[in-house]
């Protein structure tokens, strides 16, 4: 079984700063990391491999530095990876990104057919969750989003069962292979990487492709040119004024809050 996990290098939004004058990202302020949801996607592939065997490849599009997240994926347990990097990819929105990744997947599958594609639910910098389903549509395979469990893979009849999170619950779905799953964090905890993986990752060099290495690419669908959406403007939301900071002893302050609460008694679901 060949599993491909799509991964993205993102700035750690937990610590990123914005230059208030230019409204642009101060990239130096944030380290580049493997998108947290994609780490769970790689881990999910490792779990599937442990049970059913196979090969895990990761695929990323990004600047040359993005090899670091492919190495990180190898640390978690991927067997190898591909990075597509080219100026022509720059400025891609979700539509152009899914096109580029689709072309890369097409090339990968010519060497080794793909049975399952796993993506993180979304990337923490763009927050869209649209690239995974976009890839699935282009490959004409079923996209299943918000997956929290993968089970019952049957390679003979080429079926897989998953649990998918929905509003206030989940649904159990059966679909055919190949398919594309986007996974939530609760699918698994990230396990500590075994030492041999870490040693392998340190030395690992992924396959690197430019646009010219991919087959039959329509360049008008790549990068900025191939992106229907553009950022019109960036603006700072009106700064909240903030409210009333209470005064008095801790006990008096607690009392004032309780008064506020008692005005909303209908909200309490206690007897």
């Amino acid at each position, binding site marked *: 079984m060949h599993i491909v996990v799509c991964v993205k290098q993102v700035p750690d*939004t*937990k610590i990123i700063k*914005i230059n208030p004058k230019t*409204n642009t*990202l101060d990239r130096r302020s944030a380290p580049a990391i493997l998108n947290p949801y994609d780490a769970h996607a790689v881990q999910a592939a490792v779990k599937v491999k442990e049970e059913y065997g196979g090969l895990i490849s990761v695929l990323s599009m990004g600047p040359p530095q993005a090899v670091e997240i492919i190495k990180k994926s190898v640390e978690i347990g991927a067997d190898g990876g591909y990075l597509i990097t080219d100026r022509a990819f720059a400025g891609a*929105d*979700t*539509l152009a990104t899914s096109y580029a990744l689709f072309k890369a997947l097409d090339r990968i599958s010519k060497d080794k057919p793909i049975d399952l594609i796993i993506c993180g639910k979304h990337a*923490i910098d*763009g*927050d*869209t*969750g*649209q690239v995974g*389903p*976009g890839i699935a*549509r*282009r490959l004409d395979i*079923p996209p*299943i*989003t*918000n997956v929290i469990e993968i089970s019952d893979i049957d390679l003979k009849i080429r079926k897989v*069962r998953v649990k998918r999170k929905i509003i*206030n*619950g989940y*649904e*159990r*779905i*059966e*679909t055919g292979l190949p398919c594309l799953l986007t996974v939530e*964090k*609760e699918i698994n905890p990230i396990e500590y990487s075994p030492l041999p993986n870490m040693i392998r990752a340190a030395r690992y060099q992924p396959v690197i492709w430019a646009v010219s290495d991919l087959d039959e690419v329509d360049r008008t669908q790549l990068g900025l040119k191939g992106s229907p*959406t*553009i*950022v*019109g*403007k*960036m*603006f*700072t*939301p009106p700064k*909240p004024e*903030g*409210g*009333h*900071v*209470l005064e008095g002893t*801790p006990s008096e*302050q*607690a009392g004032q*809050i*309780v008064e*506020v*609460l*008692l005005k*909303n008694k209908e*909200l*309490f*679901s*206690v007897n």
Partner: protein
Amino acid sequence: MQENRGVWVYIEQNEGKIEGVSLELLGAGRKLADKLEVPLAGVILGDSIRHLSDEVIYHGADEIYVIEHSVLKQYRTESYMKGVIQLAEAYKPEIFLYGATPNGKDVASAVATDLSTGLTADTTMLDVDVEKRLLEASRPAFGGNIMATILCKKHRPQMATVRPKVMKALPRDSSRKGRVIEEKMDLREEEMRTKVLEIVKDVTKPGLADAHIIVCGGKGMGDERGFQLIHELADVMGAGVGGTRDVVEAGWIGHDHQIGQTGETVTPKIYFAIGLSGAIQHLVGMKNSETIIAINKDPHAPIFGVSTYGIVGDAHEIVPLLIKQFKEAFKKGGEKTHA
């Protein structure tokens, strides 16, 4: 592109019930349609859902496109996507809005790819440039301390998913009249690649999204034991419990309770932010709450910028006092109403 006309809203229904966000989008879509002087239409798919058409019109639509089919009984990307694309290709809207729910985002992503058009995710502000007939879809970027307006100039329809609980639904008006357009669709169950085996509703645990009161704790609670105070305060009020990304990652509480950019967006009536500083990715998930009560040791913590009431102090001292006084006061209040 010039032939594209009208504002559409994807009406999400689950088991014959319209999701709240779809009604909110009819409210927001009404404003856009009025500015552009075009009709507002709803799009609804499902099995035996025709009766919902009136509700969509009562909430602001001029038209409703309906596809009924037994194969559409449960939501599946492949069948729903096909229906939505069929309608969009036949009737060519200029703007098409979806709720940013799991299924709304799922169908919108697939439709955008097939229609080769732009899709803005998790929008929180909508407007139109009337002259250029451009949708201005704005959303928090990079954790929410900056907003980005996304435009789709050369492709139609211009599509966006919109966060639940951000837009306002119009009051239901049962005197409104509209046009119902029923569409046929060629679907066969045996051609479906995906089957829904079972739908399990988690009724034991009301989602944070539905909670009227939420008590959320951050790193300032110290450790997992300190975090128990958050549970205790929530329990006396029957409130939901939330955590910041930090405490979820530390394992003090499960992922389902994470509030913020990578967790839930909530808008309860009362939100307690305790021992958390108010990092940008947290604020984006809770700042539209009606009343925000913040407790933090640091008077300069950003959370005080969005709070309605702030207490500068130690949560470990204040929260037990709150619990005690609340219990006493509530008992008293209860007696009064009985008398």
